[in-house]
């Protein structure tokens, strides 16, 4: 075995960079010449998508249930937040209540979806979750009076800061006005993300985390060991979808709008699935890396390249072949295909597997040996 345990952990370094980054003025300015995109602002969204992907990872990565409709729960979270906070409705509960309600609401919907899929084979779970995702999207669009149809609910108000938080922030030069300074959302999302990672890492090492993986590895053997597969799967659905709802709440708050129902379509689910698979199923670090690569590519690199193409005046006629965004799906698709072909375990497979294998390639599971 490699002496991984003795190596200094590197995550504090990454976290430190992410904490310090918004306090430095220079990087954003340097980029400002190249593009209109604020990397800091986009990082906020990346943190939010990371929470979403971690939720998906619970269902797909740990438990091995192919969930193709995670975006629906992201949407449910966003819309619950919207309904509870926008000024067009009388509730206006404020951020914290909305956060809790979105998480619990999405978790409840997750269990409702999970229940009928309990006894289904893998592929059937895929179609049912996919169908549920689409139904949610249509429902959000159809309940026009409640969800404002395709327009989405807005404006979602920013959270209220308690005074004792506001003071140190102003010392750091961060204004307390959410609409002017992205950094408040940035730290909010980062904080929630770190908390989620910590909680998930704890669950992963607990009884429940082991039961999830056991179900993935061999459901029949797991039930023969007294694991209640139904309850374990439902808990995975509840926690995964709940995290998606939490991410949805942050998303709506950061965007100050729930966006339209089409922001929560199949493509969003698939991109999240790509992140999890690219990074390594069942691995928190892998999922984070996947999100940074793919969402970063989608939200930062692609628009920057499009901007550059425009700036260079290559594509003055609006030719669709010369717009970089029009090639995005192709790149995602190829990444998936090549990944599965040449590195099926993902970029950062779960720590356990890596520790065990060193850098050896993971071989396929043996076919069932005949008796």
């Amino acid at each position: 075995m490699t002496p991984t345990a003795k190596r200094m952990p590197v995550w504090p370094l990454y976290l430190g960079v992410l904490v310090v980054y918004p306090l430095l003025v220079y990087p954003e300015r340097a980029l400002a010449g190249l593009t209109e995109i604020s990397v800091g602002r986009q990082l906020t969204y990346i943190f939010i998508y990371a929470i979403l992907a971690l939720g998906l990872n619970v269902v797909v990565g740990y438990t091995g249930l192919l969930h193709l409709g995670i975006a629906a729960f992201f949407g449910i979270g966003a819309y619950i937040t919207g309904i509870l906070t926008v000024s067009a409705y009388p509730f206006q509960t404020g951020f914290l209540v909305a956060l809790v309600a979105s998480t619990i609401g999405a978790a409840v919907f997750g269990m409702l979806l999970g229940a009928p899929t309990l006894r289904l084979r893998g592929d059937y779970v895929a179609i049912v979750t996919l169908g549920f995702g689409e139904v949610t999207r249509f429902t959000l669009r159809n309940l026009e009076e409640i969800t404002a149809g395709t327009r989405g609910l807005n404006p979602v108000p920013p959270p209220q800061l308690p005074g004792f938080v506001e003071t140190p922030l102003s010392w750091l030069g961060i204004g307390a006005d959410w609409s002017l300074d992205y950094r408040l959302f940035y730290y909010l999302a980062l904080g929630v993300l770190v908390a989620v990672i910590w909680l998930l890492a704890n669950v992963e090492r607990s009884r429940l985390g082991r039961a999830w993986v056991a179900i993935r590895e061999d459901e029949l053997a797991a039930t023969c060991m007294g694991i209640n597969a139904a309850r374990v799967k439902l808990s995975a659905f509840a926690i995964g979808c709940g995290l998606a709802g939490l991410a949805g709440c942050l998303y709506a708050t950061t965007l100050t709008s729930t966006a339209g129902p089409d922001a929560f379509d199949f493509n969003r689910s698939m991109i999240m699935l790509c992140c999890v698979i690219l990074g390594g199923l069942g691995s928190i670090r892998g999922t984070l890396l996947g999100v940074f690569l793919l969402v970063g590519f989608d939200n930062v690199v692609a628009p920057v390249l499009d901007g550059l193409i425009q700036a260079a005046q290559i594509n003055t006629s609006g030719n669709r072949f010369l717009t970089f965004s029009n090639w995005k799906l192709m790149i995602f698709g190829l990444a998936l295909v090549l990944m599965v072909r040449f590195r099926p375990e993902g970029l950062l497979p779960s720590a356990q597997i890596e520790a065990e294998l060193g850098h050896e390639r993971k071989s396929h599971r043996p076919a069932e040996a005949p008796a």
Partner: protein
Amino acid sequence: MTSFPLLVAQAESAEFWQTFLQYALIGLTNGALFALIALGYTMVYGIIELINFAHGEVFMLGAFLALTLVLHVMKLDEATPVGLWVGIGLLLLIVPLFCAVINVSIDWLVYKPLRQAPKLAPLVSAIGVSFVLMNVGLLWGGAADVHFPDFVSRHNLLGEDAALSFTYKDLMVVLITVPIMIALTLFVQTTRMGKAMRATAQDPVAAQLMGIHVDRVIGVTFALGGALAGAAAVIYSLYINTVSYQMGFTNGLYAFTAAVLGGIGNIPGAVLGGLVIGLARSFGSGYVGERWTSALVFVILIAILVFRPSGLLGARTREKV
């Protein structure tokens, strides 16, 4: 007094049955289309247990090829009826061939190296391929819906003022899909290759031991599935008259649902599932509301799967321990 409600009921029922029949007719026509696409899903699943997510996209590319052929190569128009029908006949040859070639190439390039891999791997690859093809469609036809020339008349065959409507378009769908399904059934039931396909689906190892070239059989299955999707693409374009790069996803989803509903891997099941989905959609839009049809379809799917986890005609599998 007693006769009054009865009278009302009868008056209502004449009208009721008329609309009911109309919806049923629309449902069956649409269902036949879904069934055609669903067959591709089900055949591939039956033989290698893979949900070929890219199937819907193959269908979409077929529609774009049909559009390009009609607009830029054959330059068909309604002014020359003979040319038009010959052209459509040609479309029904070229497009299925094209789709078959795409489908087989996908199998060879992407799925074949993954035959021994865990089950999730080919499925994820299929999703990736579907993205790539969707992007090809986007670059080919652009992001907006494109109009497909309306060649087939909407003239009602039952007379212009008949209560029921069955148009030339509906007739076309029936005239093309029904023979295709019969031909497919005959092929699978009676020919050497068809039997080899069924044998491979039932037990691939035993099929190998019989000297069946399993990879070739899989190739033929993909080709057939692709060809069916191509035929469906032509009919769909002529019937619906709108083509877009996203049509593969939505129709593929319905078709796939149909395949699962009927019991995936089961050929009659796919046809049955297609018809059920078609009917559910048309009755749904008639009696519940257009907006809720998709939701209704999936609610039906979930309800059926809860009570029959392997679909309507699917066999219950026994776990090997």
